[in-house]
Structure formats: structure tokens, C-alpha cells
């Protein structure tokens, strides 16, 4: 019990530092928020008034406290650039897009990696295994933006099978949404597939050395049956853990893909706000991303020991 409390305390400390750090960093931005808000050419008095309004003359910690207390109630403030939207609303609109992208990408990666890993593990050191291994290393060496560009070149422009830079909200139509999400999800899935395939393949090869596999073979069960029925499940635990962590990781990493495909997600939100000097939005967005990231990782950490029955078995 004490351990749990310690972890929670650590978590809160981390979140506190992250938000404070972001706040401080953003306050160092070059652009003058008053100018950003009102535009050029106003009088100094007007700018001064805006700065007073935004509370920019208060000490850092006071401002931080005000912002934080508002944030905890869900109010992340208003953007300083036109149109002066509520940030929480914008984040609420952008977050599902990023989440959907992350989930779809992960799902596709899962779909691809299982057959590849099984095929490789069937004959370790054989042709397929070596080819898949080299291919995985190769794919991991392609930066995501390059992969995205290549995919666009081939599938969108070249063959014209998929559109680029369009988006339909999920609420507006599932098929359309999936159609538009396919290419960006594929781009994300590539790197994830490469990583998962290697991990799953290694796990499978280890599991296949176990005695119960030999026992199954001695019962006359065929290789396909053994692979699916006996080998896959025990090997999938570390994969599932990594997927969980990957999901958390993806929340921030979809930035490039969103930018390439011009999707209205969190990444585009942050980049756009950063470029426009909209520091309040950057603060809010980074906070949300960091919170989700930290919470997801903590959750995975906590459940890992529980999920794997082999670890559970040690206590039986």
C-alpha cells in the first residue's frame, strides 16, 4: 500500500514539474503576446493594457498558480490569436483525431506483425527470418516523415488509391473517416510493425524451446496448430505491454504524420500555435499530452505484474 502511495506521489511530482517547466519555457517565447493578440501598430498604452489584462506583469508563480487552478477545473484559457477560441474546446476537438490515428496505427501494426513474427519464428535463422529481420531494421531506419512522403508518392499520387490531406470526422461517417485515415495510419504502423515483429519473433522463438511444445509435437499436433494454439498466447504478454506503452508514446509522436497529411490533431495544434506565438494554447496542449503520456505509462507499469500469469504463477 505504501508503495502505491509513493508511486502516486512521484506521479504528481512529475506532473507538477512538467506543467511548471512548460509554463516557464513558454513564458520565454520571443514574441510579445500583446502584439500577437492586437496586431502591429497599436499604441504602447493599448499593449500595456492587454498585458495587464493577461496578468503578464505578475510574478511567475502567481501566474502559474492561476493557470493551474483553472486547468484543474477544465478551463485552459483562451487563445491569444484570432479567433480567440477556448483552448479546451480546441483540444477536445483535436484529441480524438490523434487518438484515433494512434489506435488505428497500432491496430494495423498488430495485424501485420503477428503473421510476420510467426513465419520468422517457424524457422529461426532461415531465409524468411533473416529477410524479415533485415527488413525490419531497414524500416526502422526510415524517418517517419520520409516514409510518409514515400507512401503519399506511391499510394496517393502515383496510384491514386487514397486521398491525401483530407479528413472526415468519425461522427460524420465511419467509412469516409477510415478511408481518409488509412494512409496516415499506415505510415505510423510501419515503424511500429518493425519493432513489434522483432519482439514477438524473439518471444516466440524462446517459447518454442519450452517442453510443452515438444509434448504437443509428440501428440502429433501439426506445426500450424502448435504455433497458434500453444506458442502464441504465452509469447504475447510482453507484446501487449509494449503496445500499451507504445500507445502512450504515439500520442506525442503523431505530430509529423499529422503535419504531412494535414490532419486536425493535437500535433498540428501545437505546431500551429507555436508558430503563431499562441503561448497559452501551447501550454495547454503540452500539458494535456504530457498528462496522458504519464498516466498511460503508469497504468501499464502497474498492471504488468498482474497481467502476465507466469508472474502470477510464481506466487501460486
Amino acid at each position: 500500500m505504501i508503495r502505491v502511495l509513493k508511486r502516486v506521489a512521484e506521479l504528481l511530482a512529475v506532473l507538477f514539474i512538467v506543467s511548471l517547466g512548460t509554463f516557464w519555457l513558454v513564458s520565454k517565447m520571443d514574441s510579445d503576446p500583446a502584439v500577437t493578440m492586437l496586431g502591429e501598430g497599436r499604441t504602447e498604452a493599448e499593449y500595456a493594457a492587454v498585458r495587464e489584462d493577461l496578468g503578464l506583469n505578475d510574478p511567475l508563480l502567481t501566474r502559474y498558480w492561476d493557470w493551474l487552478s483553472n486547468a484543474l477545473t477544465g478551463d485552459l484559457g483562451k487563445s491569444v490569436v484570432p479567433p480567440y477560441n477556448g483552448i479546451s474546446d480546441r483540444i477536445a476537438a483535436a484529441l480524438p483525431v490523434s487518438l484515433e490515428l494512434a489506435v488505428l496505427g497500432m491496430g494495423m501494426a498488430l495485424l501485420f506483425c503477428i503473421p510476420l513474427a510467426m513465419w520468422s519464428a517457424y524457422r529461426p535463422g532461415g531465409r524468411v527470418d533473416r529477410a524479415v529481420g533485415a527488413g525490419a531494421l531497414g524500416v526502422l531506419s526510415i524517418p517517419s516523415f520520409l516514409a510518409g512522403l514515400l507512401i503519399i508518392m506511391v499510394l496517393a499520387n502515383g496510384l491514386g488509391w487514397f486521398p491525401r490531406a483530407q479528413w472526415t470526422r468519425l461522427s460524420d461517417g465511419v467509412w469516409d473517416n477510415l478511408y481518409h485515415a488509412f494512409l496516415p495510419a499506415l505510415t505510423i504502423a510501419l515503424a511500429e510493425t518493425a519493432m513489434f515483429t522483432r519482439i514477438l519473433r524473439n518471444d516466440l522463438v524462446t517459447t518454442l524451446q519450452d517442453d510443452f511444445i515438444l509434448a504437443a509435437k509428440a501428440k502429433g499436433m501439426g506445426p500450424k496448430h502448435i504455433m497458434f494454439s500453444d506458442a502464441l498466447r504465452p509469447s504475447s504478454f510482453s507484446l501487449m505491454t509494449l503496445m500499451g506503452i507504445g500507445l502512450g508514446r504515439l500520442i506525442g509522436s503523431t505530430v509529423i504524420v499529422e503535419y504531412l497529411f494535414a490532419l486536425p490533431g493535437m500535433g498540428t495544434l501545437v505546431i500551429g500555435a507555436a508558430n503563431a506565438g499562441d503561448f497559452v494554447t501551447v501550454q495547454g496542449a503540452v500539458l494535456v499530452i504530457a498528462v496522458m503520456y504519464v498516466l498511460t505509462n503508469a497504468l501499464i507499469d502497474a498492471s504488468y505484474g498482474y497481467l502476465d500469469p507466469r508472474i502470477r504463477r510464481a506466487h501460486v
Partner: protein
Amino acid sequence: MTSNQTLETVPDSGRPDRGQLLAVEDVRTTIHTARGDLKAVDGVSFTLDRGETIGIVGESGSGKSVLGRTIMGLHTTGPTTTISGRVMFDGRDVQSLGVKELRSLWGARIGMVFQDPMTALNPVKKIGTHLTETLRKHQGLGRQPARERAAELLDLVGIPDPRRRLDQYPHEMSGGMRQRVVIAMALANEPALLIADEPTTALDVTVQRQILDLLGTLQDELGMAIILISHNLGVVAGRADRVAVMYAGRIVETTDARSLFAGAHHPYSEALLRAIPRLQEPPHVRLAAIDGAPPNMITPPIGCRFAPRCAYAQDDCRQVLPELRPSSESGPRHLFACHHPVNRGDA
């Protein structure tokens, strides 16, 4: 190096002839390792009738497990293994069969019981599934009938409350019960031959006896032949019709258990017998262990392989590999391979 045993001269156990099930003919299994070619089994021959039990005894490294797997066909000539000789099971050479044919044998006509019940069962699979999958594959049973039959099998091996056990996982059972499940798995399709590779080594002593009793009972009920592999002569003693003592990849003595205990001819067998602790001895007597270690099977010594450790070794022992020959004491069914046997098996 070839054995001059032929099928005619290999003795049978003296039981009423229910037909010969298995004939192992000069089998040699060589495993290609990074350090060289390991001659794990180097010229083994014996026969087994239906319903008969043979015990193969040897220490670690004698090649007995490899022999068991070669007989089963789990080792076949391939990239890492080379096998010569024949394993005639029911008239067909197991070593010449293709993978599909082997799979139709395994679990159906030949069953194997493994040493460690902890690891022989899939930890994330239910007990019932372990049984039903082999029943459905080899007998084509539907789901319900397979479940019924699985429950019957659990009952047969002496597991109480079988129906409830079907849905349990291996870790919910004790070691002895798990081994019973492993046996049930091997017997599910009533094979003609059961190969039990150290079936009791990983179990408590009290449980060991129960398991061996179980095997005996099942053998009587199902009429199957058993190859009982163990390093423990005591385990094999009361249960096998015949015993074959294996050392360094070869059989050095084979006879029925009684003759072996009455007068073993090979010094190694004698040493094994002496090594069994007896209750009648006074306490704190040193265990009579056998000095030395098994030879390097990548480059086995010329001549008798036990010679380096043998108390009676002489010059000719180190130069000429002894072949199996019949005992003049206990009859032609007792074979041994020694130039200077103990208990006067031959001049």
C-alpha cells in the same frame, strides 16, 4: 563396429508370443554440434513385443533419452542429426517415414511421457484442452464427445473429480496430478507403445511409486508395450520384464530383471547395483558411487568405453570394443558386452 546381432539372435522375453511390435536394428544417432559430431547412440538393437515392458537404464549422457526420441521419430536425419539403422514399428521403419505419417503415429500409435510435468503442460491452456485436442485430431471426435472422453481419461489415471479438473490450469494441480495428466495425454488414443522418459524423476518418492503403479495398471488394461527410461535401476527393477543397461551410447547388458539382480556380468551393471542404497545397511555408510565420468562422445575411446572407470579393466579392454554375447550362467536371453565379465558369465 557393427553389431553382429540379427533379429533372430536378439532374445525375446519369454512371454507367450503376442507378436513383435518394435525392432530396433543397429541404430546410431549422431548429432552435429558446433564442437563436432556427437555419437549419442552408437549401435543399439533390441526388440519389444506387444504388452511387454523394457527398462533402459543409464546415467546422464548415456544416450538413453536420445534413443527414446529416435525410436519415436522425433529425431530423424536432418540438418543437425544423422541416423542410421532401422526402427521397425509394426512392420514399418519409423526413420523412413515422412513428417505427415509420423504425425499420424505420434499420439495415436506411439505415446510419450516426459520427465517434467511442470513444463510438459502449456501453462496458459486448460487441462481439458490438452486432452481434447489430441482426441479430436486422431479420433475425429466432436467437442462434447471429446470432453466426455477426456473426463474418462482423467478418471482412468486416478484423478478425482475429473469433470471439474477439465477446466483447470496446470498450475492449479500438484506435481503428481500433473504427471497423471501427462500420462493421460499420452494414452488418450490407446497407443500400442508408450515411451516413458524418466517419468518419475521430477516427483516425490511417494508419488513416484503411485505413478509407476499406475503405469503398470494401465498397461494391463490397455495391453500396450512400454519403454521405461530411467537413470534409477530401482525404478525399473520391479516393473520391467527386461532391462537393458546403457553406457556411452551402447547397450552393455540386457536380461530380465531377476537375472540382473542375481548376477550381473558387466562391471558397470554391477556398480549400478551396488550403488543402490539398501535399508539393511548400517547408517552412515558411504554411498558406493562410481568414480569418473562418462566419456566424450565426440571422440569416444577405442575399445571398451567403460574401461577408464572399470576396476577390472585390462589391456585388451582398452583396445577392442566388446560385443554383446550370451551368458553361460543365466542362459541365452542374458546378453552382455565385456571381455572380463564379473560373476563369470563366460570364459
